[in-house]
């Protein structure tokens, strides 16, 4: 079949792998956006900036204090998530009584501030972050060569996505969360501290973005603009999937990553825009998104 299409299998699998890697980041980021949107009803425009912060904090930990990748995976989401909690308490919480677009504008402003500050400090050229020794090298799978770190990123993001899905859909805490998404007033009347839940949810969404940033650091160079363009693609992913379901966000993320990878094999010029074209088609056919609920 591959010979028929004139595509060598190595190129095909290579691009598929790249697509899966991109898909992992789309899934992690759109998952965070969906979790935040579910409860706060705002689109977190600073998500890309917080992803970038994740990569930078990991780099700083390694460069200034020598804390390695594995500890960074744990510490960075906590640190960046904590900044998210502060932002929610100080700023976003003041906007809940207003139109949701104000949340978008506020977080856009925050993204500009964060990106500008990092650009001032570290320039735009990008800083290297080396792959941890345990994951360097690669494995020969017979049909292709898989760099270990890339395999790890895919596995890690699948695990994190699944764990998040499990926590939200199958645990008691998740049930509270889903109930508060439907009717915060009623859930509050049952004695659950909804404002605190909202704060922690935002912190968790931001932590997911930061975790994605740590995973991305060894693959892409750590630079202040790494999240800016990515987040717009993730917005398109979110529009395609619809933010109604957690599983939908995950599947759409991985699926679109693969589609993008395949496009790069068959029609390289279109790979930058294929997701936007799919978005246009989905808007025509099913405006609420593939997994969305019509309101």
């Amino acid at each position, binding site marked *: 079949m591959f010979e028929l299409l004139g595509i060598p299998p190595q190129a095909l699998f290579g691009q598929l792998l790249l697509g899966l890697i991109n898909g992992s980041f789309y899934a992690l980021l759109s998952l965070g956006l969906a979790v935040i949107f579910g409860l706060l009803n*705002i*689109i977190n425009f600073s998500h890309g900036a917080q992803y970038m912060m994740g990569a930078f904090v990991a780099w700083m930990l390694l460069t200034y204090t020598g804390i390695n990748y594995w500890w960074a995976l744990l510490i960075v989401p906590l640190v960046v998530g904590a900044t998210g909690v502060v932002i929610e308490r100080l*700023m976003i919480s*003041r*906007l809940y*009584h*207003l*139109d*949701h*677009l*104000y*949340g*978008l*504008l*506020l977080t*856009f*402003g*925050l*993204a*500009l*501030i*964060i*990106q*500008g*500050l990092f*650009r*001032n400090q570290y320039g735009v050229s990008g800083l290297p972050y080396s792959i941890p020794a345990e994951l360097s090298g690669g494995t020969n799978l017979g049909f292709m060569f898989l760099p270990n770190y890339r395999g790890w990123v895919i596995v890690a993001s699948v695990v994190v996505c699944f764990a998040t899905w499990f926590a939200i859909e199958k645990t008691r805490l998740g049930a509270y969360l889903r109930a508060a998404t439907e009717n915060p007033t009623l859930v509050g009347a049952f004695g659950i501290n909804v404002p605190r839940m909202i704060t922690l949810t935002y912190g968790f969404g931001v932590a997911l973005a930061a975790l994605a940033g740590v995973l991305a650091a060894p693959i892409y160079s750590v630079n202040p603009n790494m999240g*800016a*363009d990515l987040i*717009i*693609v993730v*917005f*398109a992913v*979110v*529009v395609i999937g619809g933010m109604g379901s957690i599983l939908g966000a995950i599947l759409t993320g991985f699926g679109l990553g693969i589609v993008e990878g395949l496009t790069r094999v068959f029609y390289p*010029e279109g790979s*930058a*825009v294929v997701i*936007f*074209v799919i*978005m*246009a088609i989905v*808007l*025509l056919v099913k*405006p609420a998104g593939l997994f969305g609920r019509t*309101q």
Partner: protein
Amino acid sequence: MTTQSETGYRSEAAALPVGTPRHHMVIFAVLLGLLLVAPSVLYPVFLMKVLCFALFASALNLLLGFGGLLSFGHAAFFGSSSYVAAYAAKAWGFNPEFAILLGVLAAAVLGLAIGALAIRRQGIYFAMVTLAFAQMVFFFALQAPFTGGEDGIQAVPRGKLFGFVDLSSDLTLYFVVVAIVFGALLLIYRIIHSPFGQVLKAIRDNEPRSISLGYKVNRYKLAVFVMSAALAGLAGATKAIVFQLASLTDVYWTMSGEVVLMTLLGGMGTVFGPLVGAAVIVTMQNYFAGFGAWVTVLQGAIFVVSVLLFREGIVGVLAKWLKKPL
């Protein structure tokens, strides 16, 4: 989703009465007077930049402040029109008026295509969809053979207006730009106060009610989207002739953000707010041009402060204070 529009982001000052308040005519007259004497005090190229962005922000405000639709992708229209005008003037040797007209046409067609898709979603989805399409336009501009990639289209000839008015002098061009922008602002003003504008405001304030009154809401939304895109295109094409340059900056998402910031800072849903917002932001950019990314930080900070403390914008606050719609 529908109940939120009642606590919406329109300012109190946005409740313009039917008809034309006399003080608006006075402000327009004073504005025109100021514009005519301004080049004796300020650098004409700077003034033309302010005017182009004032028009761009007013075009966005028509959509955002009066139509209630936040487009986060208006750079697509501004930028593509600027590319088309620059290309027409440079490669085909069009007169500036035809180059600008062609740019506006391109922006309107693009507005029709993007608008028809974007109005299928509401609220923040609308913002995300417009942003995503604008990014698609950006990638197109980056890769297309006729846009010059990273360099853009440089050294665009200003040409001769109608074939005999030489625009190479900054001052002559300035008065042409004043005529274009002032005319467009009056047109926007007319749209806002027309029956069409009244229906738009009704849709913005309560969409289900407008539907139940029998208005074809989507047609109105699409119409205002195309108008706004065309006017943004007019601003972009004029800018391309003035600066003799069309570049990727014009079509990047930061440009979309900047114009939203101008509108927000000046006052969404006010007639004169976008002009003030554009003047403030362009002045600030000029002043801080040497400070690198601090401009971005400052713009972000203005965004945050505006949203948290200052949602009516400068002109909105002024209007509240004077108890007159501005």
